[in-house]
């Protein structure tokens, strides 16, 4: 294959693939996980949970972190988010990664969708 053809082909593939990946990453979500099913083996993995915010608090001095306690029918978990939202009592869907802080499992949210408030 000629160098020029290879160049054109790889450039086109790169652009098409980047557009396709952007579209898919914005529209595809993992399967919903029950909060009680989240365990240590899922550390650093993406989860998608649905529940009601039963409490919220603000942590940190310089950089504020907003913490929401999300509860479903089986369990509850702390969700960390870097934007200020008032969600107490709302039903939300949280997309984020599982992490451990002081031997407690928590979710670092990338996106919070409000279902009902």
């Amino acid at each position: 294959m000629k160098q020029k053809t290879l160049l054109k082909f790889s450039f086109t593939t790169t652009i098409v693939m980047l557009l396709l990946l952007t579209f898919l990453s914005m529209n595809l979500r993992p399967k919903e996980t029950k909060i009680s099913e989240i365990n240590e083996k899922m550390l650093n993995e993406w989860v998608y949970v649905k529940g009601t915010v039963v409490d919220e608090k603000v942590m940190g001095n310089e950089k504020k972190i907003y913490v929401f306690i999300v509860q479903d029918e089986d369990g509850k978990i702390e969700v960390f988010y870097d934007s200020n939202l008032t969600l107490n009592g709302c039903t939300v869907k949280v997309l984020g990664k599982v992490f451990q802080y002081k031997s407690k499992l928590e979710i670092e949210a990338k996106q919070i969708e409000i279902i009902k408030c």
Partner: protein
Amino acid sequence: MLELFLSFLAGVVAGTITGIVPGIHVNLIAAILISLAFKPYSLPLAVFIVSMSITHTFLDFLPSIFLGAPDEDTALSILPGHKMLLKGNGYGALRLTAVGSLLGLFLAMILLPFFIFFSSHLYGFIRKFMGYILIFISTVLILKERKKFFALFIFLISGILGLITLNFPLIKQPLLPLLNGLFGTSLLTISFIQKVKIPKQKLKKERISKKETIKALSSSVFSSTLVSFLPGIGASQAAVISSSFWKRINEKMFLVMLGSINTIVMALSFSVLYTVGKSRTGSAAAIQRILPTITSKEFITLVLFMILSGILSFFLCDFFGRFFARKITRINYRWLCFSILMLIFIITATISGPLALLVLVCGTSIGILTHCLGIRKMHMMGCLLVPTIINTLS
């Protein structure tokens, strides 16, 4: 004592396997061990993980140089390693990385007391300025390139691919398709298309001057120390930082540098765990789970087994290097490339999921594009640098 020694030997065997077989990382084995719920507070298990991890840092250059299948820490070694393989010096290239790893390990051990003493002060400082340091280094590297616009273009599109992949919830172990695509499958595809033939390999030990070795090691120590404190930054970013230090860096120096960085970063991650209590590699995280608080006595034991693993791994690397160098010319390289390409596709789909294949194809295209444009593959490290810069500055 016997159980510690047996754990050390088992760790070296496991590290050899994870190093040689493309796609299997020590983190995977460490995660499996943890999930098997071994007795907690077990020093033998920690010795196993330390020995496996150090051995892995020596052996993981083998698939990268001979097969063109890198892992996250050896991606940059492909280009100079493969170049030397095509000149019949694959064994020499591997030996240079092994020399670098061994010297790096000794240097890390010598510097350990200073590192332990200063780490708490360095931690805050590096954390604060890492984003700016990486922007400065990326700019320097792009400006050093003759085709600056293309270098910037490759840096940015690799960065976009990195951002998408690392934030894609349906892709597990995202570094696997990302780095294999950009650095591994792209090179294998080019070799397959261009019908590359591997010449007879010489079993010659490559010589490198003392001055060049000191230059390579000094920049490695600096950059490895810098990255050891931060999560998500590893040997590849340290290699980019080290490369920006010198105006000209030849392939031998580069291989010694990569070897030393790979081992120093791993060794220092255990020290950071001991001093600051933070885990910065998968192996350190596993040890943190097994030994929540490491005593001085336990740390000294781990250090001793790190040194022993390093010495043994050096000879293992030499043995397997000779073995691969003898065998590789007897195989049809074009079909070997095709088989490894298929293997990487299967491993990626199995471990990271079917959507990861799109990342692999995109990374391969960017790798081929970089080759066609005639610019250095290092700019593709934008795939990790751009997300790291955004994370540390936000």
